[in-house]
């Protein structure tokens, strides 16, 4: 079971367990140039969730290639997926070109949905025409499969998904965070320095499950489910909603062992329910009842 963008570049969690135990690793968003990210506070706790406004802090693609990816190559059974972000199509294209020269990259995840940068990626994530253009441009330069990560901050995520599929995406991952705000009522201002931030964690799970259900019903490419997964049972829920795999984000902050614990819990659930392969679970909740899309 792959882990998501909340894992930095893997080094830290490697102190807790063997990364080969993961299905894959999705590293932190990588941009063309180094980015320092937003001011602090960047984090807030919310009911059953959290807000973040990291702002894509990362050392830039060249240093990622030089300093981070070689470290991960020691894990021979660990496909590395690089999350790519930027502010213009050309940025994305250049990052993907650079990454395509590196063997260590198993797939690209296009982050067209980060809510935390000014003039940032989210425009691509909320306009289907722009998203399709982006995907087409990237597909021309990418030598590995391209996963497009969708934003939940849209009126119609199915429309976005279909546009990305038609433009050549190899898979979709969803959801990124929802835009939220918390106010520090004593200080009378937004708690995050950036004002708004991205909401993640169990609070958003029902929204994510709904979107995975809808999107996986509308496209023929694999869908990776993300959003509020804390336990194996949550992973089962996403699989039954139609996800072919899942990513775990916020849970890693609460429990450094979250990914491997969830893999174990999922295995135990399958054993207890006579399920031989998780493939049997994919879309299992879709059979009997027609679901009203409102």
């Amino acid at each position, binding site marked *: 079971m792959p882990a998501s963008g909340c894992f*930095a570049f893997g080094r830290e969690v490697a*102190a807790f367990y063997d990364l080969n135990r993961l299905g894959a690793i999705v590293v932190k968003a990588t941009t063309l140039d180094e980015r320092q990210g937003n001011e602090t506070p960047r984090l807030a*706790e919310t*009911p059953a969730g959290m807000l*973040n406004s*990291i702002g894509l*802090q990362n050392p830039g693609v060249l240093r990622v290639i030089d300093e981070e990816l070689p470290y991960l190559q020691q894990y021979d059974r660990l496909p590395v997926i690089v999350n790519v972000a930027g502010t213009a199509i050309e940025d994305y294209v250049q990052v993907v070109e650079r990454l395509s020269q590196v063997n260590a990259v198993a797939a690209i995840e296009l982050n067209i949905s980060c809510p935390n940068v000014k003039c940032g990626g989210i425009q691509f994530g909320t306009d289907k025409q722009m998203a399709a253009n982006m995907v087409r441009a990237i597909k021309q330069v990418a030598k590995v499969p391209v996963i497009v990560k969708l934003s939940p901050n849209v009126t119609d995520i199915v429309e976005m998904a279909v546009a990305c599929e038609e433009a050549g995406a190899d898979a979709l991952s969803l959801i990124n965070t929802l835009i939220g705000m918390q106010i520090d009522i004593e200080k009378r201002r937004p708690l995050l320095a950036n004002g708004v931030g991205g909401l993640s964690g169990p609070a958003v799970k029902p929204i994510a499950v709904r979107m995975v259900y809808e999107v996986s019903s509308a496209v023929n490419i694999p869908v990776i489910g993300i959003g509020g997964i804390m336990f194996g049972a949550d992973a089962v829920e996403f699989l039954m909603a139609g996800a072919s795999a899942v990513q775990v984000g*916020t849970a890693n*902050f609460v*429990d450094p062992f979250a990914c491997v614990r969830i893999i174990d819990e999922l295995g135990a659930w399958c054993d207890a329910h006579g399920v031989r392969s998780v493939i049997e679970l994919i879309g299992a909740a879709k059979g009997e009842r027609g679901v009203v899309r409102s």
Partner: protein
Amino acid sequence: MRRGGEKLALVQIISQQSIGADIFELTLEAPVDLRVFPYEPGQFLHIRVTDSFDFLLRRPLSLCKVDLIKNHLSVVYRVQGQGTRRLAAKRAGEILDVLGPLGHGYPKHKDDRAALLIGGGIGVPPLVELARQLRQDAQSVHTVVGFQTKAQAILVSELETYGPVTVVTNDGSLGNHGLVTDVLTQAFCADFDRYYACGPTPMLQAVQRRLSEWQLPGYLSLEERMGCGIGICVGCVHKISRNGRIAQLKTCKEGPVFDAQEVVFT
């Protein structure tokens, strides 16, 4: 890169005691064998106050005291919001989900002879174990601690076992009247090799400015909101000037203690 001590463990609460206005000392079984993994003063524990999603994130609390024989640790904390309130309701015998010790604490300088410790409010706790270790290294220790008011003064007698303590309160209800920086005159500071500070950001900023004037090197322990505590969320950064450039470094992993010269306040 595992530094040795980071560990996720369920540990038992040994005791919980009120030691000041809304301030508690919580003693725990240590999550690691402290003789195998000696911890650095300035490191912290990252604590889950309940398994409820209402408090999804852990709370960072600095290590305050250590009992190497019993393998116990203590943290001292103030009830700040709902999470620490929940923690304060825990009783001896209950089990706590603890990650740590985490981060880089105060480095050791074996050749120093006289250390100046500066603490403000709830930044005082990490100085206790620091003072003990410095004394063990045969350094003299003088501590300056500042509190809002007498009711919030904590750990003064503990610190006095390691050397002289100058207490300052904002309202003059205990010790000197004023701010810790009022004490830090050039003459006063002349005797020390180095300082070690922990406290609210405005205090650290004032201390840094004042002591750089007197050219006294030192360390600041920074406080930022934390998510993971282990370096994967990149939420807890602070601007640090190092190798000629200013970078946003993670206070949980590269800190919370930094060389005072490197810390950039904006």
